[in-house]
């Protein structure tokens, strides 16, 4: 049985292993034990005490109850840009026109912005390749949103995700080659690593501050603007089904798109309902496809747990759980849990 729970410092070993598998492009998961240790401590602190939102970072672990340790991680940064500076490019438009010459030219232009400042970010999603099945990716990503549903006061009303941009097998990003490299004198993996490792001062020091007219970039760079890496397409589709939309901003390094949503509009939160727990010793849960899965959270904070059950376990306003499921969720009969379809029903029909 797979459970989502807050990550703890004891997960360090398995998180380091995950980071090694993640590779370039997963900026927020650098394979540096000290750095990951810091993340785990920060997350533990965030779950232990309700610290100021600008410092709150909630890291969740996906754990197989039969195999202790983290088989995947995902996180929420409660606020970005409050104790550092958060940069994006806004893809904007400049129109130059002359009626005398009969010319009307539109020029896409990148403006350096801090527009996502004070918003909440979902980040650091990585699932071990061996656990990529049966809706586990959906569980790992959406359990975060279910956590937010019961702790709205800790988060901004807007939630966003930076999607990994286009790069080739060597980690070469055409957007970076055409823009960032010329200013940073670094390779993309190197720059990516440095930001992930928490050294962001260099961005302010080296980043071009004036708007960048897109025609100055290479054709490949222009084509990759606001496009996601092939490996990230499923994640984009997942977020898109939950209501996330491209907001016109891109990552300053690889040009990947930023997608955002108002928390109250997130599909899994909006469609979620509360159920009384009924523990049934005789319940023999049917095996289920991800399309039949129900995402259940125990609605707690420091003892937050979430898992998947079959949707046929709903009985009116109650949810039947096996003793094992109840233990996994740390709930007892009569407790109130939150549950929602793991996948948007509409999307399933369409797909």
């Amino acid at each position, binding site marked *: 049985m797979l459970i989502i729970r807050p990550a703890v410092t004891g997960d360090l070993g398995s998180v380091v292993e995950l980071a090694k598998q993640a590779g370039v492009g997963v900026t927020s998961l650098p394979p540096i034990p000290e750095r990951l240790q810091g993340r785990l401590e920060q997350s533990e602190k965030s779950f232990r005490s309700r610290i100021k939102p600008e410092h709150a970072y909630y890291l969740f672990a996906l754990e197989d109850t039969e195999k202790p340790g983290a088989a995947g991680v995902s996180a929420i940064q409660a606020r970005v840009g409050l104790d550092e500076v958060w940069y994006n490019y806004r893809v904007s438009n400049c129109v130059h026109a002359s009626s*005398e010459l009969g*010319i009307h030219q539109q020029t896409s232009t990148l403006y350096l912005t801090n527009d996502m400042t004070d918003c909440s970010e979902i980040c650091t999603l990585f699932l071990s390749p061996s656990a990529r099945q049966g809706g586990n990716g959906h569980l790992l990503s959406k359990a975060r949103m279910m956590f937010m549903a019961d702790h709205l006061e800790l988060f901004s009303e807007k939630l966003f995700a930076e999607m990994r941009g286009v790069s080739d097998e060597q980690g070469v990003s055409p957007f970076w080659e055409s823009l960032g490299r010329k*200013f940073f004198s670094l390779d993309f993996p190197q720059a990516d690593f440095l930001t992930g490792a928490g050294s962001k001062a260099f961005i302010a020091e080296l980043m071009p501050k004036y708007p960048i007219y897109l025609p100055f970039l290479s054709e490949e760079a222009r084509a990759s603007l606001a496009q996601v890496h092939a490996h990230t397409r499923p994640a984009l589709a997942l977020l898109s089904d939950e209501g996330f939309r491209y907001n016109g901003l891109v990552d300053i390094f690889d040009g990947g798109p930023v997608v955002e949503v108002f928390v109250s509009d997130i599909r899994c939160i909006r469609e979620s309902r509360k159920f009384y727990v009924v523990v049934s010793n005789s319940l023999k849960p049917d095996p289920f496809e991800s399309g039949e899965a129900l995402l259940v959270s125990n609605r707690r904070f420091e003892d937050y747990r979430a898992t998947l059950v079959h949707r046929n376990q709903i009985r009116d306003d109650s949810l039947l759980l096996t003793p094992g499921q109840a233990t996994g969720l740390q709930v007892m009969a009569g407790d109130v849990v939150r549950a929602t379809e793991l996948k948007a029903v509409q999307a399933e029909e369409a797909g």
Partner: protein
Amino acid sequence: MLSFRPAKVTDLDDIEKLLNAVGQPLSTLPANREALSEKLDQAERSFSGDESLKGQERYLFVLEDLGKKAIIGTSGIDVKAGNGAPFYNYRRDSLFHSSQQLGVHNEVPVLYLSHELSGRPLLRSLCLHPDYRQSDALSLLSRGRFLFFKLHRERFGESVIVEIQGQQDEQGNAPFWDSLGRHFFGLDFRTADYYSGVKSKTFIAEMMPVHPIYEILLTEAAQRAIGCAHPLALYNQRFLESEGFRAGRHIDIFDGGPTLEARIDDIATVRNAREVQIKHTATAMGQPSLVCNTGYQDYRATTTLLAQGLGEVTRLASDVATLLGLEEGDSMLRVSL
């Protein structure tokens, strides 16, 4: 004999002929009869003291080969660059992007759109028939204007600018334009350059990108063209440098060619020219020199031989005196060629 004098409306046909012989288009003298005729009218009114052009005169001179009765060159001065409208340049500046943490220290040159040179006196429309390139004609064509500065110093500000034509290939494509302006104007260089001579300047304000341009984002060919003269203009640049002109931080917005600047009082010709009284002589002898009368509307300059001397009286060949419209005892300016 060569005569350097104010251009007149009646020079239209001869100037057209000259422009055809030169081939290379000049944005300030478009090979368009209507526009050209308007420019000549403006020039004539500038010399005749038309009130509407006061303080904003647009002088145009021609160089005439009297023997061949042909106009073989033109040169001009705008009293105020831009003529009341903004005069566009890029100003090159450097930012330092430096990170101690990474040990990266990059000098990042940036081009800022600038109107800073608007209103300065501007040398323009220098054009010489190819047959005369090896003669003193270029010197007369260019320095004749500097003597005019000296004679009418109060009409011009402190320092003068001149734009040197930038790099182009044989098809008339400019690498700087292709990497920059073309994206915004949607026009090839020749067309845009032509429009800048015949259309109002409004279209530049409308089409020009307003944000600063990072040079490193331009193509390598464009970066190399920044501040570089067209090979055919290089001789003129060297000549102006010998007169005391220096490349400043401004370049042309279209082709990236350099803009040279000089304090008028520091121009060698202005500094070295002396006013003397003339005395007739039958034959010219001595050092090759530039001479001019002290006129305005009937300003004339030419080259001749003059005896060296520091006195206030100079012997001038009668035919030259006639050309300049001078009689014994009249003043003229002289400077060695």
